[in-house]
């Protein structure tokens, strides 16, 4: 009996009564056909992401270096000082990143981000499928997924080996289960919501800011369907999950509170930029989609399936009240989704913090995309998208967004070329003996991880040095004294942070007589500074 017999019970005399009836097959075929657009979107997203090629970036190096250490130690529960300055739990993403790196190198870790962002697109689709009515639901979901997949920050994160992509995915899962919990009242969905959200926060503490939209999603929908009691129970359940998880982690590593405070809750801005400049970047990155989100809310509120009571004598206020009353069920949820897009940018603008803004935009778009997709669907002609000519507007809008996004993502991904500098450094170091001073400790620590021990690298953050007279120096004097005495074998400075510690370090390198400049790499890093490498040439 062949496969065709199995698929077609009427074909053979021995056809068993398998559940492959024509109806079932037709249903599955319809389901698979319904997935074709989503698959096409994911293919485009993958293709767009695959255009991003570059060496490792500093943030990637930070987490992967820590991950490699943890993976090599063989245990994720070993406390590390990284917990005091990491913006996520060091034992979670970095550990898995380290494991993946051991399997397939940097590209394997980036593949995790790629998969995460693709799945995040699927969560956007799933999220959007829960709202709106009729075929609008599916059209909105497709367009929401397409809009999300085309965002520059989404394309960028898909090739960025940090915990951002995984965090976006976990947030997406949390949002989907929050809506499911609210719409079905299932406890299991609520538990999963709490679990995914806790994991998202564990992955990256910045996900905490999205506690509000998640709470609104599950809270409002549960209130509407199951009443206050169940809503309160769900809230307590999720709070308990978060508390238990946090408690265990804090017991294991008290340094986490310092990290949380240092990087997230009481963060000092690393790169202060005028607020209007930050707002401008947000608009340039995803302004169109954010705007579409609010337009979608407006359309939903004022032009959705609302039926206005007849009579021209009612005032605008009266009609407005009727609108809201009739649509109070979903309006707050739709508004929350749309507004979530500006949460993170607003925080950046408030803090005047430029760092990581381009990544955080994707977090908010995850929530706003379903509403933006709804707006686009309505602009494109409503529930019969392929009819008429307005679908051309959808096509053009998407193409213009994509035409802007891909170059933007490529621009975000175009930090200075690093492999050559790492190779140059590699040609100068010996295992266990070479002492290196660099202000790119993470990148070079990662690049030379197979060759040297990270302890051979001295960074700009902390240095204590005892000179030949027995005097101990700390900070800037320690750097200059060590250079004067030819302590380091190799010095590699990109002048990104280091000069603030020892402003006259360069002068000491020149006057000590121990160092010969061997390489200079222009256009290094984000700021395109020059990286210079010296080597020790004297006798000790």
């Amino acid at each position, binding site marked *: 009996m062949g496969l065709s017999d199995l698929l077609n019970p009427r074909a053979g005399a021995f056809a068993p009564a398998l559940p492959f009836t024509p109806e079932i097959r037709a249903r599955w075929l319809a389901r698979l056909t319904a997935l074709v657009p989503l698959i096409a979107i994911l293919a485009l997203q993958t293709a767009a992401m695959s255009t991003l090629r570059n060496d490792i970036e500093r943030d990637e190096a930070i987490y992967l270096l820590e991950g490699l250490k943890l993976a090599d130690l063989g245990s994720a529960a070993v406390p590390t000082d990284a917990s005091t300055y990491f913006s996520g739990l060091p034992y979670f993403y970095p550990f898995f990143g380290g494991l993946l790196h051991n399997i397939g190198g940097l590209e394997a870790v980036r593949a995790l981000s790629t998969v995460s962002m693709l799945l995040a697109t699927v969560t956007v689709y799933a999220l959007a499928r829960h709202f709106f009515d009729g075929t609008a639901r599916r059209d909105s979901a497709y367009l929401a997924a397409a809009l999300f997949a085309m965002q520059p920050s989404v394309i960028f994160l898909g090739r960025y080996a940090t915990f951002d992509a995984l965090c976006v995915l976990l947030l997406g899962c949390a949002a989907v289960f929050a809506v499911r919990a609210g719409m079905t009242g299932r406890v299991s969905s609520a538990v999963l919501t709490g679990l995914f959200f806790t994991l998202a926060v564990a992955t990256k503490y910045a996900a905490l800011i999205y506690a509000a939209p998640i709470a609104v999603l599950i809270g409002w929908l549960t209130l509407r369907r199951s009443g206050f009691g169940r809503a309160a129970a769900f809230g307590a359940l999720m709070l308990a999950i978060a508390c238990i998880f946090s408690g265990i982690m804090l017991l294991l590593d008290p340094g986490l509170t310092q990290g949380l405070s240092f990087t997230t809750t009481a963060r000092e801005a690393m790169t202060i930029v005028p607020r209007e400049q930050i707002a401008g970047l947000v608009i340039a990155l995803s302004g169109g989609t954010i705007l579409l989100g609010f337009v979608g809310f407006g359309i939903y509120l004022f032009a959705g399936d609302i039926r206005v009571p007849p009579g021209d004598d009612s005032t605008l206020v009266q009609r407005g009240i009727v609108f809201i009353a009739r649509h109070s069920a979903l309006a707050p949820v739709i508004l929350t989704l749309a507004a979530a897009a500006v949460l993170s940018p607003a925080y950046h603008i408030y803090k005047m913090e430029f760092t990581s803004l381009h990544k955080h935009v994707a977090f908010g778009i995850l929530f706003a995309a379903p509403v933006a997709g709804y707006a686009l669907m309505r602009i494109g002609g409503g529930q019969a998208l392929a*009819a008429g000519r307005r679908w051309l507007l959808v096509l053009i809008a*998407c*193409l213009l967004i994509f035409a802007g996004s891909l170059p933007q993502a490529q621009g975000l991904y175009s930090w200075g070329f690093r492999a050559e500098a790492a190779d140059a450094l590699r040609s100068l170091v010996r295992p266990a003996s070479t002492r290196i001073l660099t202000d790119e400790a993470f990148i070079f620590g990662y690049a030379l991880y197979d060759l040297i021990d990270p302890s051979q690298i001295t960074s700009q953050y902390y240095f204590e040095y005892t000179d030949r007279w027995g005097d101990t120096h700390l900070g800037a004097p320690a750097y200059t004294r060590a250079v004067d005495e030819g302590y380091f074998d190799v010095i590699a400075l990109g002048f990104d942070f280091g000069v603030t510690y020892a402003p006259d370090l360069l002068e000491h390198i020149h006057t000590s007589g121990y160092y010969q400049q061997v390489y200079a790499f222009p256009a290094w890093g984000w700021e395109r500074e020059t990286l210079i490498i010296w080597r020790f040439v004297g006798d000790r």
Partner: protein
Amino acid sequence: MEKLHRVDNPPLMEAVRHADVPYNGTVRVRSVDAPRQEVSQPEAVRFDVRALQPVVERLLIAAGTGALMMVAAGSNMGMWLTLAAFVISVVIFARAESERWHALFGILAVTVSVSALVYLGWRAFSVNLVSAWIAVPLFAAEVFGALHLLGFYYTLYPRKSEPIAQDIDPTTLPIYVFVPTVNEGREVLTATLKGAMAARDAYLAQYPHGRVTIVLCNDGRVAGAPDWEDTERLAAELGVECVTRTVKGGAKAGNLEHARHVVGAHGDALIAVFDADQVATADFLLKTVPYFSEMRMGWVQTGQYYWNTENTVARWANDQQAMFYRLLCPGKSPLNAVIICGTNVVIRANALDEIGGLPQDSITEDMAASVTLHRRWRSIFLQDELAHGLGPMDLKSYFAQQRRWSTGNLKIGAQHFKALANPFAGPRPANADGAPADGLRFDQRVQYLLGTSHYLCGVRDFIYIMTPVIYLLFGTSAIDYTSMGQFLSVALPFWVMSHVVFYIVIRGQTGIRGVMINFANFPVYLNSLFTVITGRRLGFQVTSKQRVGRGNLQFIRPHLFFLALCLVAFVVGVQKLPQNPEPIFVSLVWIAYQTFFLSSVIWLAVADGLPKPLRRRIDGIETALKAARMQPFTRIGRSLAAVSSVLVIGGFVFTLTGRAAMPPASPPPALAHSGAGIGLILPYETLDAARDVEQSVIGRTDLIAADFDTAWAEALRETGAIPWVTLAFRDPGAGDAEDFDASPLAIANGLRDADLRRWAAAVRAYGGPMYLTVLPRIDVVAASFDAARFGAQPDDVIRAWTHIQAIFTAEGATNAAWIWVKGALGEPQIDAALRTMADAVIIEMPSLPRNLWVFSGLYGDLPVFVQVARAGQADPAFLPLALDHAAQVDELDVFLFDAGSHFGAGIY
């Protein structure tokens, strides 16, 4: 107030249901409270803001399209936009509930259209203004071609037809069937009239209360046809009316109008028109008349199909016709833009009355009537084959027919261009003064612009032919060529996709013959354009229904001329190819494409001109090929696809598993004391002189960045010699450049691993015994010691050697023996370590004054090659002396004499 209701006239409903309205195939019949008389009812003009919506939409679409083209022009996003368009169109069209053709067409059309826009965007910025005289026309021709391509897909886009209103019962209307004739003859006319009679009889059988009058409109007398009286006799025999004109004028339109006047076919009458050769099917009236239940229905057009396709020209022309009737007309129908085609049509007399009858001042009176009537009347096209006629029987008749159509349409296009092209002209409600001058809807205007401007494709094709010819012959380029990559990334997707999608769309409806014969018309269309521009008059000429001559050569002279031109340009281009390969190659491909189409015209003329038996044989071959394409070729194609798939998959599998499947590498060459051989290291230019010497070891130095020359090694193996490769990590000629990755430390730290792995794989793949040397003379301690210059220490050298050997071992390249080339006065620590790792050692013996070389047995069992070298010109006396020394050495395995200046230390 409109409402759906049950129709009380089942036969009518049945007829309408089977009338096969384009696309959705069903007709919703609705009733109205009163017949709509919007034609004559003046309306108060009132501004409605909703009327702005389509205008805003169009403006947004136009602006967005322009923005996209700008983006495509200003970036390398062309391919990406096409890909994204494909994906978005999948999102829009690919639905489980979608009609399959709608979905497929939508996706393909959108993708190819965006690729066209991307191409145009790129081309706009690559017009070579230095040669504007050819560059600008080419760009204009490409814009024209792209607009028509967009128009083609715009027309064919599946749309739902507006429901047919049931304002009246059309079967109560009087029907007149007009058959205009000039000189077609009894045989042709008899078939046509019998067809009309059969249609009448079937109709009356269904609707006994109907009134159908068949009128033979005889123009033979005024045209001076010798058998015009026989036509009258024929009418009498068959019992149909015959109206013979006595005053000429107005050609076919005049004939029809005269007959209409004589029989009184005005008012609410319906007029069916058949050319003298068009034989109606029995159900013609049954299928067409029911649509006139809608008062607004002006005419119902059906297709024009040739039954004499055993004739070569008619067959090709039929394919061209099919493009129009099977593809474009069904697309125009929902847009209410189906033109009157002059035959196989039913027209409401009221409509003709309104414009004073068929225009008699045009040679394409049907088109002229349509463009005027469409302002308020509705039209529809039925896809059923409801009549068959005779196609042109030879090239002369065909080209004459095309000339009339093209001249007429171009004239109408020119006359109405202002109204058609005005973007702000839109439909306005009728007023008491009659139809507005610019009352066509946007879609209708687009269709008329496309239809009338189609005949400018002659100019386009002429420019397409001449541009590559001019470039290849005179070097004048119309395109500001940047790079092949950029050109191909934009042009190739557009070109390939436009062709592939086009043939998918026309598949089953028509074929490439239709395209080829359309191309054959370009000299005719050019002539017509000249006629229109100069204002010359072209008389109405009836398309001949029989062969009028055999000499086709005179009609294809232009084609022969351009074919010869293309062939000359092709030959010249091939000769010039090395000068500028990329653009010339593109031009050659372009010329080859044009040559194919020009040749097809020649083939048509030759095939048509052949004697009847031979022509029948060729037709048989053509039929057989067509059948083969449907059956065996499909199987062959599938088989080829299967084989290709297997090959591709097999290739992948072989590539992935190839290493494991390769035969094991040979053992390294035997080195231990097999008796001293003699080798020569000669200047390269003296190698030829040593050709007669039996060579057992042939060495060369390769940069590691290069590839292993497997062919060289294989050739040596065939002669019994053993290849010896010295791998250099830096180019010795590169001077003091800081090749940081060439230092022993860099090698030891893995910076050259990729290159080493590649070499190891190649050496293993070669498989034969060979010698390998790396880091020669690295042990030399001197001021210029390269290793020292890189800050290397002895340990670094040892680590590097170990690292290199480990990579070769890991890759399975065990067929190479390692030769350590020791430098004179080298670092003992390095020598001591490397001789334990090497399979053999080379000792260099430079010829120095009063220098006697003594071997001390230092190397134990390690085979030793001795390389005797001297700087400068080779001294013949030195060789015997050196040999004499060497003969005293028991350990010596190979003696190498370096007769050139190949001496010194360094990493290479």
